């Protein structure tokens, strides 16, 4: 994999035709999962399917449609190891923001910071954007091409932010089996 899998430019997804039409298995798996999700959240009342059935079909359709352009799923074992990391970091993130705003004089120096993403995998990028927003001090604000704009509650130390983001990027790259060139090698 690596950087050979470059995200296809918007509006030109014809380039990404290596994946064939969805298999019956892929459709059934999604229908089953989404139906089970509906059953768990909405309960067993049969009339709930008036809304549930269209929702499950719409979810299946969007999932198939979007997965054609995504970069596959994370490796199961690596995903399991990611869970405690994520929980611990989001707890740290919550304490960090609570600590900053509870002082009579808030401990903040908000600002924007740019970072060049090395992750190419589209699914991995979405996970990175969402995870970064839940971690201490950072919020993924914009992504244009490879340039990620991060909003930080304390943007005074750019090198520290770079290191934090690079570390998360490395972790998420490993989750999707994507090996990144080390920052030091560039």
């Amino acid at each position, binding site marked *: 994999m690596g950087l050979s899998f470059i995200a296809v430019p918007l509006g030109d997804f014809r380039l990404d035709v290596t994946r064939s039409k969805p298999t019956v298995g892929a459709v059934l798996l999604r229908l089953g999962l989404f139906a089970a*999700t509906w059953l*768990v*959240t909405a309960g067993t009342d049969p009339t709930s399917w008036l809304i549930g059935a269209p929702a499950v079909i719409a979810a299946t359709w969007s999932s198939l449609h979007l997965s054609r352009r995504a970069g596959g799923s994370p490796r199961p074992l690596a995903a399991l190891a990611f869970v405690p990391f994520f929980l611990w970091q*989001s*707890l740290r*993130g*919550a304490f*960090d*923001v*609570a600590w*900053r*705003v*509870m002082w009579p004089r*808030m401990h*903040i120096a*908000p*600002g*924007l910071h740019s970072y060049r993403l090395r992750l190419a995998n589209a699914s991995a990028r979405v996970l990175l*954007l*969402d*995870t970064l*927003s*839940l971690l*201490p*001090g950072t*919020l*993924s*604000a*914009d992504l244009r091409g490879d340039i990620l*704009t991060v*909003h930080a*509650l304390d943007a005074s130390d750019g090198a520290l932010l770079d290191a934090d983001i690079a570390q998360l990027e490395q972790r998420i790259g490993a989750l999707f089996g994507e090996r990144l060139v080390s920052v030091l090698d560039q």
Partner: protein
Amino acid sequence: MAGDRLHLGRSFFFIAGTVGLMRLPDRLSRLHALTKADNVGLGLLVLGLLLEGPGLLNGIKLVLIWLFVLAASATGAHLIAKRALRGDGEDDR
């Protein structure tokens, strides 16, 4: 009781999130308080309810709700931030 302590922790994070929302100076900074503190607050609420409420199905339902809210709030925060940066420029640099 472990449940009581969890509910205390939940209240702390929800209050911190609200304090952040009121005190932080700009739109983007406020999003930090809403995504991070409130998500952990909801996580602790779910954890407390897991200890109180019986049933496996109930448990899966609660955890699913937390995951949906996590994904929705992180994605929503990103969209709001992007709009703020690209839109009227009020929060630019």
